Structure formats: structure tokens, C-alpha cells
């Protein structure tokens, strides 16, 4: 596992506050495994907002629109998705990268455009932890 539950728990309260501020919802409604789009009504513009707010809150640098790119890893784009549908190899990468997402939330076939529907507050906890790790290395 990329990060321990203890590491996730350490950043989650602040991440939840940031999400509640960005989405205008009650912080109590922000659960670690809520779907940001389906459960908390987030839209694509909210993800951009979230990233900026997280950068401010945690004083880290988070590259824009990188979650899907990071999920793909060294897999070529054509091997990750074809005609907008995530390939079998791509799905393996995605399930592993988004290990926090319950298995039944992945679609079959999974549209690449719908990947953000899988994002949860825990996904963004991991984004913050990765950014902190990168900052430490630099």
C-alpha cells in the first residue's frame, strides 16, 4: 500500500475541511470514501478549485490534472484507453492506483471521461501525501 491508514488519517481532517469549503457542504458529510461527484455533487471545476485550496492549506505544489496521468503511470496512452474506454491493462492500473475506491464503483466498460466519478476524499488525501513526499525529496 502506497500510504498507511495512519498517514491518511493525519491529513484527512484538513482535507475534509477544504472539500467542505470548496463544495459548500457540511464537513460532517465528507466521508473518506464518499464519491465526490455522486455523493457530494462536485463538478469538474470543483476539482480545479480543490487542488488550489489544498495547495494553500498544505503549502505544497500539486500538478494540475495529474491524477489520471499518474494512474496511467508508464503505460502508453493508447494502452491505457482506446476510443474513450479504459483497456483491461488500464483498469488494472486504475484499480491499483485508486485502491481506496470500492470495487463495485468501477464500471465495465469504464469510460475514461468518467474516471473523476471514482475520486473520493481519500483520493485527495493521497494526492496531498504524494505532494508532501515529492517536496521532501526535492
Amino acid at each position: 500500500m502506497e500510504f498507511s491508514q495512519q498517514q491518511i488519517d493525519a491529513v484527512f481532517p484538513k482535507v475534509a475541511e477544504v472539500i467542505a469549503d470548496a463544495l459548500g457542504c457540511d464537513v460532517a458529510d465528507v466521508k473518506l470514501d464518499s464519491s465526490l461527484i455522486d455523493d457530494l455533487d462536485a463538478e469538474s471545476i470543483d476539482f480545479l478549485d480543490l487542488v488550489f485550496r489544498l495547495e494553500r492549506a498544505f503549502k505544497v505544489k500539486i500538478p494540475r490534472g495529474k491524477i489520471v496521468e499518474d494512474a496511467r503511470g508508464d503505460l502508453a496512452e493508447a494502452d491505457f484507453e482506446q476510443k474513450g474506454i479504459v483497456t483491461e491493462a488500464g483498469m488494472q492500473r486504475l484499480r491499483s492506483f485508486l485502491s481506496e475506491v470500492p470495487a463495485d464503483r468501477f464500471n465495465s466498460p469504464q469510460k475514461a471521461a468518467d474516471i473523476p466519478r471514482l475520486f473520493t476524499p481519500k483520493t485527495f488525501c493521497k494526492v496531498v501525501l504524494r505532494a508532501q513526499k515529492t517536496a521532501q525529496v526535492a
Partner: protein
Amino acid sequence: MGGRYGAFTFCDRITDYVPARRARATFAVPPKLAEFSPCLTAEATGQLAAWVAMAHIGFRGRPVAALAHDVRMQSDVRPGETLTLEVEIEECDDNAVFYQGRAHVGGREIVRLIDCLGPMLPQDEYDSADDLAREFALLCGEGAPSGRFDGIGPHAMETIDASANSRSARLHVPVTAPYFVDHFPRRPVFPATLLLDHAIRVAADLVDADVANSAPLRVAQVKNVKMRDFIRPGEDVLLRVTRMTAGDDGPRVKLEATIGDRKMATAQFAFAQAVLEAA
């Protein structure tokens, strides 16, 4: 006058420009206007940030108003006065521009923009990159002629519902309007700042009852502006404003703008008592 770069472009000359970092510009508010709203001053400031951002990426993309975390509306600019617009670009690339800005008249602050973000969209869909590059060169050089803006009258709005704690009004976005020439030539979009201008009128109508016997209220702060989708010419937008818990200085109101089931925009307005200025 009006026309391209006159109908909805609020910059006469860029007087200081550090690529991708900051810019300062002037815009003379034509004396012929009845008013120049704080929302238009915010638009002017945002447009300066857009010029810097577009120039940085060779005009292949253009930012659109999407997020403004905090807009402070301190006072009004009077027709005949010249605005100084200043922007600091914190981050700018092919994906988005993130900036701070302010507009003032001789140091009297009119509007301050805090933490604004505009995603970049493909320029070709909205405008001509070559035209914009030429206009930018003009603005950075001798400047464009001032006084081209003819003003924008209020659009048709009808109240749908009114109670002590909320108002709903339907805003009819015109099919044609002079500002669509600038916003944008290839794909007309109703400007977010005009939407906010009209929403503030609805919100002001809601809170006006609070101050029946004292100084009038003016919107002092617009927070958490989030434009979620484009509004096209001819569309009807439902503006619903609802009271929130009042702040220290006055009432606060939240806005939700919708078209059918689509949420188009959200924002919050904080009102404060107007300070009456000596004439």
C-alpha cells in the same frame, strides 16, 4: 462606438508588463455612462489577467471566468474617472491562470480580486489568436482609443417568487447584444460578471427591507464565485438568492443560478451599509 474591442473590452493601455508575472493598465470610464458597476470593474481587472495569460501561451488558449474566491467591492468608480488595473499572476500555463488583482482610482481602491482562477480553453473556438496578438501589441504600445464603451443596460428580469428569506427572478439573456462581439466573436457567451451584476440586483431587493430607515446597503464582498457552465445567448436563467446567517457588517445572501436542471453558477454576497461620499 462599441464594436470589436469597444463593446466589452476594458483596457485602454498596458503601462507596465512583466510577461507571465504582472501587469498594470488604465481604463478611462467614459463620461457618457450613467454608471460603471463594481462587477464591470472586476471584469476589467480579470481581462487584464487574461491578456497576460494569453500572451504567455502565444494566444493559443484563453481563460474564462470560473472561480473567484473573494472579490472585495470597496467603492464605485465614477464615469469620467480613470481606473488603474493591476494584476499579479501566481501561476499560468496551458491549463489555467491563477491571479490576484486590484482596481483603483488614484489609490482609492474600487475592487480587489483575491485568488481567482480561470481554466484555459482553446482560443480557436472563441476568437482569433492573431487578432488578439495584434490588439495586445497595440495595448502595450501606443494604447487603444478610450471612450469606446457605450454601457450595458439592465436586461429583462421578472420576479418569480419573493419571500422574507429568498427571491427568485428569471433573467432573459438576449439573443443579440453588442457585447457578444467581444465576448466572444466565434462563440458568444453571456459574461459571468453580467450574471453577477443582475444577481446582485435581485439580492439587493431581498435585503433592502432590512434598512428601511437607515443608510442603503451595497454589496461589499462577493465570495466563492463558481461558474459551472456557459450561458448562451437567448437562454433564460433562474436566479435564486437566499439569506444566509448575517455577517458582522450586514446581511449575507447566497446565489444559485440555474437553467432547467443545470446549475450554472453559485456565489455568496455580503452587504454592508454604504458610506455616503461627499459629492
